[in-house]
């Protein structure tokens, strides 16, 4: 497979740039649903360029934030590359590794505000923590099951209901992990916890925003990869399908999040536990029964 590296590079290049544009699409789409003109599609790119041109300001008393931001960025790039490579080359080991990395990235994402000493970001982050613990466990279990039912990343001979359930649960997990309403409670109650990004500015904010976009892309990409593994199998078609799935999911999630409100911080975990346990139980049962 000599074209493997080429394929991976192409995939990687698109997955590193697409998110900024997809974010622009998200903003434009939101605006359309809200009867506004909205910013141009490349607005996120403009925002990032502007942030990178500003001076570096670190949150009070904190160098940790800087280290963490860069760990966050580099780990995200590694994770997203290995997931791209996994579907291009059909390596379930790389896929496993990328999902584990994703969990670590989520952990850093939550830990970062704690380095800032700002009560508001800490309130925001502790809320996110509760959600993440539940959602990440669900993610790991579901991906584990995905690996179990399709270890070769190639299409099965016949479809079983397990596959549908698997994709559905993955969709839910990834939707929640992408931090949208009703589960964007880190950003909740705008005046009490003005979002956990409150302490960041300049290039540091740029890095964090960009990495967040990568993370959001990654959680959608995983769904695409599992889907591709089950339909087209690995290789160039698989890679293409995962990227298309990622794009479509981005659009679908945008619409979904625009038409609902935000859940309350103490209600959200309860509804999540309910949904996840139902789905995972069903998944295991159907898998064991082989239907």
């Amino acid at each position, binding site marked *: 497979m000599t074209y493997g590296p080429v394929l991976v590079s192409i995939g990687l290049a698109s997955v590193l740039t697409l998110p900024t544009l997809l974010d622009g699409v998200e903003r434009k789409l939101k605006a359309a649903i809200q009867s506004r003109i909205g910013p141009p599609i490349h607005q996120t790119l403009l925002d990032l360029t502007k942030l990178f041109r500003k001076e570096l300001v670190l949150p009070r008393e904190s160098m940790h934030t800087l280290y963490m931001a860069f760990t966050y960025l580099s780990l995200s790039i590694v994770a997203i590359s290995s997931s791209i490579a996994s579907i291009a080359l059909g390596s379930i080991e790389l896929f496993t590794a990328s999902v584990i990395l994703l969990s670590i990235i989520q952990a850093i994402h939550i830990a970062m505000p704690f380095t800032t000493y700002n009560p508001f970001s800490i309130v925001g982050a502790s809320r996110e923590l509760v959600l993440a613990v539940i959602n990440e466990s669900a993610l790991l279990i579901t991906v584990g099951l995905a690996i179990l039912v399709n270890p070769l990343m190639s299409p099965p001979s016949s479809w079983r209901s397990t596959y549908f359930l698997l994709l559905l649960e993955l969709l839910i997990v990834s939707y929640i992990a992408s931090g949208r309403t009703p589960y964007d409670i880190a950003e909740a109650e705008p005046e009490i916890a003005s979002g956990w990004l409150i302490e960041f500015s300049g290039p540091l904010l740029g890095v964090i925003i960009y990495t967040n976009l990568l993370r959001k892309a990654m959680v959608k990409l995983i769904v695409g990869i599992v889907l591709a593994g089950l339909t087209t199998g690995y290789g160039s078609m698989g890679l293409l399908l995962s990227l298309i799935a990622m794009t479509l999911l981005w659009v679908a999630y945008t619409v979904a999040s625009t*038409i609902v*409100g935000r859940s309350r911080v103490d209600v959200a975990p309860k509804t999540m536990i309910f949904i996840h346990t139902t789905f995972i139980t069903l998944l295991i049962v159907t898998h064991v029964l082989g239907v």
Partner: protein
Amino acid sequence: MSFSDIVERIKGVRGVTEVVTSRSALFITATADALKPLAMEIYQIMGGFFRTCIGSDERSINNCFAIYYIFGLDDRGLNIVVKVYADSKKPELPSISDIVPASDWCEMEARDLFGIEFTGRASYRLILPHGWPNGVHPLRKDYSYDSRPVTRAVSERLTLVDTISTVPIGPYHPALHEPEYFELYIEGERVIDVKYRGFHVHRGIEKLGESKLTYQQVNFIAERICGICGFEHSTCYAQVVESAAGIEVPERAKFIRSIVLEIERIHSHLLWVGVVAHLLGYDAGFMHTWRIREHVMTLAELLTGSRKMYGLNLIGGVRRDIDLSKKEKILEVLDTISKEYIELASLMVSIPQVRMRLKGSGVLYKEDARKLSVVGPVARASGLRRDVRKDLPYAAYRYASFNVPVYDDGDNFSRLMVRLDEIKESISIVKQLLDQMPPGPIKVEEFIVPEGVVAISAVEAPRGEDVHFIITGHGRPFRWRVRAPTYQNIPALKHMLKDQPLADAPLTIASIDPCFSCTDRVLVIDSSGSKRTLKLGWGLG
């Protein structure tokens, strides 16, 4: 209880020295000893509400300070004003806040601004900043408008209790974007107590009032008390002066006032619905409500010349007429918005998160609402049927038939429903009034305002009743006091936030539709105490 019974009962209280009756008010002068029994009689036995109390420096006239307490018997459309004198050297009066909890703030306001002490209660600084020197009372007549006392900035972190966590909200923009400061004490995610510090935007308009403003000019400043419902303030001010001077405003002007007041209510409620949607993370609802509201804003501009700050009122009438083409435009806009907003309202109520988070949160029980004499939609959502438009009809409201929506649950959802229903009623009121509008002039040009007359006026603003109180002076008010609705409603927040999840706090704060700059307002416009003979008898308002 008949009217004469009321008068008899009041006359029966020991220490009542004078009772003057007029069309819509009962003016009582009493000694300090009679204050508590009177409060008991009116507030507890007759079931009156408390509107506010007003300090006044009348040393130049009768060598005394005075306090005016305004009660309202809403069900019979009667205001009861109790005037009590306080000594000029050592002004001190018994506090009635134990009988009338709603009087807590206005007593502290009189203490800050006039130096009148209230015995039998804990005193604290309400209005003046902590760095303000002691013993300097800016509303006293011997305090000149341009003196600036030396103040030093003092940190105002309210209480630091180590055992529980404190979440500060504000001072920049809690809920609505205005400067107020709340300190929530929380255990886990429950709020166990709340402290409030406001009055950061005291705008010192008294300076202008004392040096420059005339009766007509004050009107434009009055409109600027509130950035959302300013027209209610300017109407209320115009009415209070008209009532003091006995000016008969032309009927057509009254109709125009009512129509514009309702248009302002529609835009204000839509604004609030949008803000609540935003707080619930439902930004699409926010944008669409404001899209609908935009029609109303443009309409307001067409009728008055400005989207906001209409500048329509003068003492004696209004400045712009509503002609046929404008009437048609109003009807057209009302048709569009009534369709669109009903559609959007039912959509919003269908959003699961919106319903779930509003139902059962921020409950204000009827007894607490009554004790604090809360006003407006907050009162009506807690089962109190109070609406100045019905209770003390002004402008042209007596010509329209409308419902006063009342809900009994006292939660955030009820407050949403009250406002949604009121938009419907407002649309219908405007249509009815447009149909019946009589021809004729729209203002009285010539009039004189006699000195030393006391008058009160109330207007139902979107947030509740506005009360303006005036003692007329020479060319400008001698004493002008404004009581904005939020002033009456903020103390109720304590009850609404207690034992509720922290996550609901911003929503609950927003649910009273607070207007902090209204509350902080201008405080007062007083004239300088130049030599003049002022007999402070009761004016018949």
